[in-house]
């Protein structure tokens, strides 16, 4: 198990997997888009604008999920100085950032015909914007800070502090009056989304997860080649 976590091993697996994952991503995305745009029914109230949910919700889930992983990895980077973990979190962050932007933009596009406004400073939307900003600061910290050791330390601190925002996003709709609706998919009780609409939602979520895996693999290999390039100097 631990052998798998060695950077060199991941590089080997990643190089072989990239092609397979990209084909799988295209296939799942095509099925997902057909389901989301053509086969799934319209909503009794929102009519066809419900289809925006099939990109908005998976993007929001992925953005939250990836940041949680980032925070978890950052904890062990900070405490145990795990060298592989910072490569992993650095490679995960770009797709998480894109997902948070997609969630915000598609949310705004959905809000206009549904609520009657593009933007509202309600707790859910504002905390989601803060998540996007945390992603941005995290990504920038790698670029801005020259000293590598310091960049690792500071970026993992940013991820750890930013993780406090995660439960705020999740529970904002329960804790305060918000314009954003409450959650539809609950662990302990029935979902309030009809099953014919859950199918495209889950397929799109799978497609989004595959996309972030694809970006992760490519980014990880880029970082590895950078390191090995420096290694050639030391021969």
């Amino acid at each position, binding site marked *: 198990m631990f052998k798998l976590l060695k950077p060199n091993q991941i590089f080997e697996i990643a190089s072989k997997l990239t092609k397979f994952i990209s084909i799988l991503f295209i296939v799942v995305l095509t099925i997902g888009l057909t389901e989301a745009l053509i086969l799934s029914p319209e909503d009794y109230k929102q009519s066809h604008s419900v289809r925006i949910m099939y990109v908005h919700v998976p993007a929001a889930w992925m953005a939250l999920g990836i940041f949680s992983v980032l925070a978890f990895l950052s904890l062990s980077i900070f405490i145990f100085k795990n060298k592989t973990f910072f490569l992993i979190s650095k490679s995960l962050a770009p797709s998480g950032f894109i997902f948070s932007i997609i969630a915000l933009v598609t949310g705004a596009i959905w809000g*206009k015909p549904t609520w009657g406004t593009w933007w509202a400073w309600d707790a859910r939307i504002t905390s989601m914007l803060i998540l996007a900003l945390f992603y941005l600061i995290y990504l920038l910290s790698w670029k801005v800070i020259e000293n590598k050791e310091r960049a690792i330390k500071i970026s993992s601190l940013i991820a750890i502090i930013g993780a406090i925002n995660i439960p705020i996003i999740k529970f904002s709709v329960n804790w305060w009056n918000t314009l954003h609706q409450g959650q539809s998919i609950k662990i302990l009780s029935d979902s309030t989304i009809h099953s014919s609409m859950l199918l495209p939602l889950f397929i799109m979520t799978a497609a989004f997860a595959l996309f972030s895996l694809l970006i992760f693999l490519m980014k990880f290999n880029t970082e590895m080649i950078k390191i090995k390039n420096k290694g050639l100097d030391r021969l």
Partner: protein
Amino acid sequence: MINELISMKGYGLYVWSSFFFTLASFTSLYLLTKLELLKEQKKYILKFGSLSEEKIEIAKDQKINKEILLNNSITKI
């Protein structure tokens, strides 16, 4: 049928622009990542080529270096 799919009872503009934005973001991030990967592979190969023969032998002993050279998309072309 096609018209209905495009107009979506008046919500077409909103639905299609959401999906277009999503796919456009995916494509840009993919291209950016791919370009960066190609750039690093190219730099690596250039440096590898500039090494002395003796050093190349040492480098070839490390499995990871072989992997990089094998799996890059430049030498394959």
